[in-house]
């Protein structure tokens, strides 16, 4: 990672970068690598989704895979999300390992019953007779003027559901390693990619570099305030930290990487040191991810907090199309910096 390369191995709980591919690849290509390697490793792994084969994916994340693995392993589907997510669950129940791409997270809503009532529950309600080793990958987030129906950040919804695991990678390294972990996981994993990060470059790990779920990473060390963020918001947080550094404010940026399970321990340890916290969340504020992390941190750090936790969310509105309006609706580095300043302003009280 640009800001703290030394921390890659230390906090990741994965092998050191020395074993990794040294070249810098995009977040997109990191995901492709993860799928290619897992397809090679395990014949039970197959990919399924709309336009992932011949068309190579709406965001080209599956580029080259149809040619390499053929149509049995790389399955183009009709536009039937409920149907093929359900199909994936059934296939997973019988031992296959489907990696399903929903073209974007927005289309998960038509498949939500399958995700919540089947994928997340069958293991429990049938007394452990089956597992659902399935990954549902989906790009999400806003920022490209796609309007109200195409700009969801549904981290909070998925994190709400026991039985799911929820992964939100922010870097190419994490994207690859976490996707590999997800594919090898025996439970349903919701893998939320950020449309805004596909072109982001960075180093990636090798074929056996995994990251266990529930292990966060310190993206930047600091002493005055802890900023918690996942996925694209990590970069917003880091940009805010840069702004604030110029003002003599030192921020620690923590990326929990998975929101279910959540590495509260890492966050709490930091907040107990900085005594201040801001959570950045691309989703809506009510019953959102930031509210959730904040509630946990208040509980774990009540006696350490010098000020209320700052929450930076998307505006509580359907996403508008107009460029400036959309930008205003989304968390920006300035908003985060302002939230940090606000929480630190209470230091003296």
């Amino acid at each position: 990672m640009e800001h703290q390369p030394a921390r890659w191995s230390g906090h990741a709980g994965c092998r050191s970068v020395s074993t990794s591919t040294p070249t810098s690849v995009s977040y997109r290509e990191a995901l492709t690598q993860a799928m290619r390697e897992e397809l090679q490793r395990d014949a039970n792994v197959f990919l399924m989704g709309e336009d992932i084969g011949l068309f190579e994916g709406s965001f080209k994340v599956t580029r080259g895979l149809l040619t390499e693995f053929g149509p049995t392993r790389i399955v183009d589907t009709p536009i039937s999300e409920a149907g093929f997510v359900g199909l994936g669950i059934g296939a997973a129940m019988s031992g296959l390992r489907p990696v399903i791409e929903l073209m974007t997270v927005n289309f998960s809503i038509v498949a939500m019953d399958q995700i919540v009532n089947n994928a997340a529950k069958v293991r429990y309600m049938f007394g452990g007779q089956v597992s659902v080793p399935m990954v549902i990958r989906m790009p999400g987030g806003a920022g490209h003027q796609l309007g109200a129906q195409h700009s969801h950040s549904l981290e909070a919804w998925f994190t709400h559901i026991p039985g799911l695991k929820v992964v939100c990678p922010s870097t190419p390294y994490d994207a690859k390693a976490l996707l590999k972990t997800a594919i090898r996981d025996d439970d349903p994993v919701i893998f939320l990619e950020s449309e805004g990060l596909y072109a982001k470059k960075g180093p990636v790990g090798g074929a056996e570099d995994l990251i266990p779920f529930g292990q966060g990473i310190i993206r930047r060390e600091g002493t005055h305030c802890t900023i918690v963020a996942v996925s694209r918001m990590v970069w917003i947080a880091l940009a805010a930290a840069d702004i604030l550094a110029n003002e003599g404010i030192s921020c620690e940026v923590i990326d929990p990487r998975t929101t279910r399970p959540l590495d509260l321990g890492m966050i709490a340890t930091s907040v107990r040191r900085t005594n201040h916290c801001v959570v950045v969340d691309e989703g809506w504020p009510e019953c959102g991810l930031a509210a959730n992390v904040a509630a946990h941190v208040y509980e774990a750090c009540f006696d350490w907090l010098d000020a209320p936790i700052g929450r930076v969310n998307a505006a509580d509105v359907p996403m508008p199309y107009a460029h400036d309006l959309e930008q205003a609706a989304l968390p920006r580095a300035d908003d985060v910096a302002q939230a940090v300043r606000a929480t630190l302003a209470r230091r003296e009280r």
Partner: protein
Amino acid sequence: MTESATAHDQSPVPASIDASTMRQMYAKMHLIRTFEERAAEQYMRGNIGGFLHLAIGEEAAVVGAVAALRPTDPITSTYREHGQALARGSDPNAVMAELFGRTTGLCNGRGGSMHLMDREHAFYGGYGIVGGSIPLAVGLGFAINYRHEDGVVMVMFGDGATNQGVLSESMNMAKLWHLPVIFFCLNNQYGMGTSITRAASDTELFTRAQAFDMPSRRIDGMDVMAVYSAVNDAAEYARTAHEPSMIEALAYRYRGHSMSDPDNTRPEEEKARWRARDPLITFERVVLGDAIATPEELEQLRAANVTRIDEAVSFAEGSPQVPISALADNVYTHPWNTNPRGGAVMPGADQ
């Protein structure tokens, strides 16, 4: 009872059914009837909670369909699935214990009447959301093709489920990818209190398959032989032609939708008409008429079933309750914490 067939119908010749199969089918039908009547009784006594949906009247459709498959062919069902489990060979003790919510139940008391599963018998479960299990079954069929196996999947759903869009999505994929799936619609003509005539613009539900170029037919679901024969043909077609098909079995449930339904909206005349075709009675006539069994043999068989279900009730009653410490078991295959109430937080935050 009319039997319609589409132009695509691949199965004009009914399979012959041997005597032992017929005896076994009768025995299962009676076992299921006995089980469900006892379950109703236990429900009234408060030993069974939640919803209890009885399939009394539908035994021919359930047993005929299951009997025509290999025991390893996966099946899925709705919440009205005691019969499917028993037809498949699940231990009545474990089924009754599940209804009682005990550790010894098929699903260790986590599922209850609506959510039975017996994976050992390739019964992939009863599901509570109407239509919800249909794509799962297509996925089981997908897995069969993926692994080059020769199984056939049967997904059983109600007439009401044909109005869930996921059925059409599933049929399209099954046909498009040549999956060995039998879409078995158990049309008991009602979704709760709503007659199919008030829910379906075309009450010939088998026509739903035609838009996907999939063979389909309507059969008499009160006639276990007709059902056996149709499913046998569909399974053969799936195994040889590697194609899905649909069967609509016309039947009737004698009780209300669930135990809490007073069933006071269906016409009495209609109920009487269908009761007159009770599959147990009509099939008993066939079995006796074809000298498949003597009246005494059937009497013995029925007595044995009653004893069997008595035993199941005793077993369930005597089985231990689920310990509360096990509340969070099986939320995940490998849980990340040992919190007795589950939870998303990794351990160690409370230091």
